[in-house]
């Protein structure tokens, strides 16, 4: 897919958003530090080892977890492995096209992957079956169903929620009973965009379309930073980045509560 480019937004809409931004207002009436309503539903896919459907406003994504037995990486013979991919099917937006994952989908999957990997959310050291020979490989597949902005946070949240209640499919492989996937505490991701020198959390599609810069930070339960990504062609000042992280720490606490419910 291509995240819709600035040129595709009408001048009228861009002017409207710019005018609102000068007054500190957003097109859907939210404050700059207000998320859209978040809804998490777990175990919605029977064939998956874990799954979650997350809605942030009109954005809807589905994360599915599958486990397979495979070979460990040579540098970590006693650890399981994980792999994250994102699919942006044409179902989710008139702008998405079929075909192999494009750079935007790959960036999305890699940013979600880093948050989970660096916070050591999945206890990969407990996923060894035979050292050097057989380990569990955890596949996190993100399926976008409705795209109205902020896929980064929706996907990260869906992945965290799906992993939280995932199982190791021992029965399918004749290893005994299924058991819960060993996880610690999940990372929480928080995304901001900047347009007209206005920085807002949880951008909707209109805001993403005119955004000059994007910033995502994944925080652990102590509010420490586990992954970051600055995207798009514009820039942030050092103070803006610092401020974004502080704002994210407050949001992450609230979102974490939703995951713990």
């Amino acid at each position: 897919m291509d995240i819709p480019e600035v040129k595709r937004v009408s001048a009228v809409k861009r002017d409207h958003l710019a005018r609102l931004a000068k007054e500190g207002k957003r097109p859907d009436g939210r404050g700059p530090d207000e998320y859209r309503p978040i809804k998490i539903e777990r175990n919605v896919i029977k064939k998956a080892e874990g799954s979650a459907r997350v809605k942030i406003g009109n954005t809807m994504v589905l994360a599915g977890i599958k486990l397979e037995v495979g070979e460990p990486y040579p540098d970590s013979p006693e650890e399981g492995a994980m792999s994250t991919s994102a699919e942006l099917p044409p179902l989710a937006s008139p702008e998405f096209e079929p075909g192999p994952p494009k750079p935007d989908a790959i960036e999305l999957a890699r940013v979600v992957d880093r948050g989970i990997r660096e916070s050591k959310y999945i206890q990969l050291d407990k996923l060894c079956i035979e050292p050097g020979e057989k380990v569990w490989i955890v596949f996190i597949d993100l399926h976008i169903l409705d795209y109205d902005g902020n896929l980064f946070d929706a996907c990260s949240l869906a992945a965290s929620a799906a992993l939280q209640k995932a199982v190791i499919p021992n029965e399918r492989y004749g290893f005994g009973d299924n058991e819960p996937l060993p996880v610690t505490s999940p990372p929480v991701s928080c995304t901001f965009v900047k347009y007209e020198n206005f920085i807002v959390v949880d951008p909707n599609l209109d805001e993403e379309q005119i955004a000059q810069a994007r910033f995502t930070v994944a925080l652990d339960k102590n509010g420490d930073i586990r992954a970051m990504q600055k995207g798009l062609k514009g820039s942030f000042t050092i103070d803006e980045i610092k401020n974004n992280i502080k704002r994210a720490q407050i949001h992450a606490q609230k979102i974490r509560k939703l995951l713990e419910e």
Partner: protein
Amino acid sequence: MLIKDGIRMDGRKPDELRPIKIEAGVLYRADGSCYLEWGGNKIMAAVYGPREALPRHIQDPTKAIVNARYNMASFSVEERKRPGPDRRSTEISKVTSEALESVIFTELFPRTTIDVCIEVLDAEAGTRCAGITAAAVALADAGIPMRDLPVACAAGKIDGTIVLDLSSEEDKEGEADLPVAIAPRNEEILLLQMDGHLTYKEFEEALELAIKGCKEVVKLQRKALLNKYKTFEVE
């Protein structure tokens, strides 16, 4: 043993469908959409268009192109499926496009495409029929003019008995599978595939049963569409 004393492994009678749930207009971005659960299948379908067909050389100056894309989520099956199209999904996309095109008034929208996206999120036998059934509701929800509401259902043969709507085990262990899509008003066949082994007489019986199943399902499709518009209260 798939059937005993006229009762199937999942407790159904030979001519009984699995439970079906259909909801129309579930996606915000799509022009029309449908979420459908059919037994263990979960399908999301979306329709975009009619919109300009691009690149321009694919345009048909006399009519719209109907372009259905059947895609399985990697986590929808027991063993993880590699994302992206394979030979099976490419074939299903083709026959689905053709089945849907035959009921759409494509001549009203020259040089456009009508894109139909079918995402299988959870799979348990009969996904192509479920996909077509969901796509039909999404097309109607998008306001695409059609001469009928297409619908699909499979019949098959297990332990020598003709049954409706095969389950996963029945599909694997059974003797034949016959997915059928029809335009229910005049019973025109829009899609027909078959694999396995049927005598001519068994085929007649299976086709009749599949059509009977289709006519059950079309009631649920209509109900889903009516439900969407019922939610508008008139003061």
